[in-house]
């Protein structure tokens, strides 16, 4: 669990990798990549009420070289497609992608018959690790997305899972 999305390194010890993954999972530095409405909910998550720093992810790095996870928060359209792919390439290797909001999952409200300009989903450009539905998703949903990504990296879930109903 959590091995297939991190390419192999030169030195590999099982226990060491587990420790490394634990460190990576709890200090995910997201890249400020707010495109549209979901960016405002991402800012609210960074605010003091929902407080993303409880998960070690409050350091929003502007440059792709220093960020671990790209939170695609908004709509990708054809003019921005090459820029998004460039940013994904420029991120150093252990990198993950969270598709936040319906637009990043499948084009959302703009996936219509007359759609000439919106890329229908971030997974058409690069592999996406966690999908967060919602338009825009609530800050709690983004936190749940980060917890899911942590579970995907380390293999076990640190926080109790809340089952609705």
């Amino acid at each position, binding site marked *: 669990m959590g091995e297939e999305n991190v390419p192999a390194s030169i030195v590999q010890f099982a226990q060491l990798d587990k420790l490394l993954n634990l460190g990576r999972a709890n200090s995910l530095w997201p890249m400020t990549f707010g495109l549209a409405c979901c960016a405002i909910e991402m800012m609210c998550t960074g605010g003091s009420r929902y407080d993303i720093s409880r998960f070690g992810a409050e350091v929003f790095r502007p440059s792709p070289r220093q960020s671990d996870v790209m939170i695609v928060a908004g709509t990708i359209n*054809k*003019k921005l497609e090459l820029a998004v792919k460039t940013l994904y390439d420029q991120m150093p290797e252990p990198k993950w992608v969270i598709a936040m909001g319906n637009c990043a999952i499948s084009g959302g409200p703009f996936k219509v*018959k*007359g*759609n*000439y*300009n919106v890329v229908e989903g971030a997974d058409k450009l690069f592999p996406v690790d966690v999908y967060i539905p919602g338009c825009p998703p609530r800050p709690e949903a983004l936190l749940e997305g980060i917890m899911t990504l942590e579970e995907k990296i380390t293999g076990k879930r640190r926080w109790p899972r809340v089952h609705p109903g």
Partner: protein
Amino acid sequence: MGLLERTQAALAELFPEAASAPGAAGEGGAEAPPREIGILVTDPGKHGSHLDVLCHPAQVVAVAQILDREGYFLEAISGVDWLDKQQFEVVYDYNRLGGEHCRVMVRTALDRTHPVVPTISGVFPAADWHERETFDFYGIHFQDHPNLIRILLPEDADFHPLRKDYMP
């Protein structure tokens, strides 16, 4: 003399032959009998604009200069695609920035196959981006516009999305 009358008088010089038909509610829409060139007083409560000016494409710059002199500002430029009449229509909206409220709508009809209208970005720099957007969506060519390239679509797009006969 109120602002409305002063503007109407200023514009009237441009259309000496067409007496402005006062009072007819601005039904100069799609199916009304084709209105000849001229000024129409419309009721702002229903239509939002006080004056509805229909003019030739060539007169567009003259109208803009008059309204610039009167202290109006350009609110918006929108293109309309009348597919059934094989016509494009460019709607200019002028409004007052402060003081008494008076909105003037200037419309001009263009032939659909090669729509050309002179640019007014010389008079109102605000028109620069609005005209580029109308060109981007409808393909209406604005003569001697300083930088008429697409503004919202990717530069290499070869279609005009808001035309009625366009479907991706």
